[in-house]
């Protein structure tokens, strides 16, 4: 199946020995670099969104407006509610520090009423209605908010960016394919005479195609790997450590699976370029007798 890749020296001489004469390898290197950076960003975003989703999926807050007085009783009620795995009260001092960002020193005023806030986690399938009833029995004004509702818009944006990254990878792959088609046509024009002679002597389209396919596959592989190597360097610089699973930005990490996907991308790009070159050359040859 891959015998086209193992050309004999005499077959290699048919199209000349020079390699990387055209811009194909460079174009593919740039595409490969861009694809890897964008894919890494997309995978990091997906990882971040996943982490965030897992972190907040089971997390809720009880808020009691201006009701810091019975926080301890309320915390006990929440902790004892069925399905609650953990609960902790947000200290009033922390609430005031948070408010200080908007209100300045006035946030420390004892006249400013500060709501009581308790964060808690629940087991999957926990009866939130029962928890709400227990809480409201202690603090009738209390309300329960799911964190996922608050962070929903952010998650939506992260997912959207992830799809944008995926779309860009597809777009760049399409651009790389177009560059390969142009390169294949250019190579056919350059070697038109050789092809005519070969056809005249009885070469099949596949015999001619294999020569070009192999040449473009080598250019594509060299370009893909070079671009990937440059992208890997940039990613290493961006991550905080040299660890293979280091952070990309702000806590987003790339898993082993993500790294595997990134490692396979240059090979996928090479395979795509090779297939596109083969199709383009075969299509062009079919126009001749």
């Amino acid at each position, binding site marked *: 199946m891959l015998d086209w890749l193992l050309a004999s020296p005499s077959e290699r*001489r048919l199209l000349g020995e020079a390699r990387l004469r055209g811009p194909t390898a460079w174009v593919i290197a740039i595409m490969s670099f861009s694809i890897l950076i964008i894919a890494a960003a997309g995978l990091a975003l997906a990882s971040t969104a996943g982490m965030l989703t897992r972190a907040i999926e089971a997390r809720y807050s009880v808020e009691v407006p201006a009701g810091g007085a019975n926080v301890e009783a309320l915390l006990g009620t929440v902790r004892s509610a069925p399905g609650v795995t953990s609960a902790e009260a947000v200290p009033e001092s922390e609430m005031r520090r948070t408010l200080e960002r908007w209100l300045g020193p006035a946030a420390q005023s004892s006249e400013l009423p500060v709501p009581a806030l308790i964060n808690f986690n629940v087991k999957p399938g926990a009866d939130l209605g029962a928890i709400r009833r227990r809480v409201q029995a202690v603090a009738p004004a209390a309300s329960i908010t799911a964190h996922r509702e608050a962070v929903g818009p952010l998650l939506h944006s992260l997912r959207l960016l992830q799809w944008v990254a995926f779309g860009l990878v597809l777009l760049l792959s399409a651009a790389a394919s177009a560059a390969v088609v142009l390169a294949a046509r250019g190579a056919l024009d350059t070697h038109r*005479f050789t092809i005519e*002679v070969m*056809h*005249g002597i*009885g070469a099949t389209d596949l015999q001619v195609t294999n020569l070009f396919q192999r040449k473009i596959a080598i250019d594509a592989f060299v370009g893909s790997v070079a671009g990937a190597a440059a992208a890997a360097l940039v990613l290493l610089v961006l991550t905080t450590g040299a660890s293979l699973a280091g952070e990309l930005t702000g806590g987003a990490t790339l898993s082993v699976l993500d790294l595997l996907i990134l490692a396979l991308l240059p090979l996928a790009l090479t395979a795509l370029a090779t297939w596109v070159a083969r199709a383009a050359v075969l299509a062009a040859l*079919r126009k001749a007798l």
Partner: protein
Amino acid sequence: MVLSQVAEFDSVGLRYGTGAEVLRDLDFRLANGGFYFLTGPSGAGKTSLLKLLYLAQRPTRGRIRIFGEELSDAPRELLPQFRRRIGVVFQDFRLIRHLSAFDNVALPLRIAGAADEQVEGPVREMLAWVGLADRASARPPTLSGGEQQRVAIARAVINRPDLLVADEPTGNVDAEMAQRLLHLFSALNRLGTTVVVATHDVGLINATPGAQLIRLENGAIADPTGTLRNPPAPPWSRSRC
């Protein structure tokens, strides 16, 4: 099964694009093992007729059978197997410039699937035969016109084709080499290869006893009643057809 006819042309016409027909109403047969000279003035259509013979062109009308197969409108995937049975000496040699003389001559064998070690001997022998043993590694631009022509001839005959088509094969070689090439063609012919040579060289025609003549004029065979006949004897030998 041995074919009696290598090529059969029935009411064949050829035009390029929307121009006038360059070949018209061609009806003839080439017998298996025959030796034919194709003559006629420049522009008569000799090269176009040869293109039809070596399957570089399809007729715009009529039917052509080569090696017993109707190939006028055969799928192009079928053509390579027939082309491999046809050796062609082009008027402009059509050597691949970046390949050595050795690689140019070896090309038909390699395309037919011969391994490199099977190619070495026959190619060296053929190059020696055309007097180019010491020029095996030379590339065509460094060869003289005559040397290039000999490489082209060596390439055409290296795989002992069933049909050899040559367009002015002695146009660039001296008289001695022309004689040697003619002997080569005759030897191949004796081994069963049908030979068709387009030429103006009447000396070549007269030096080939038993060869038959096809004369083209204005895209048609000049003498429809005796298209395939022995070449005329002198007095017009040594003159141009």
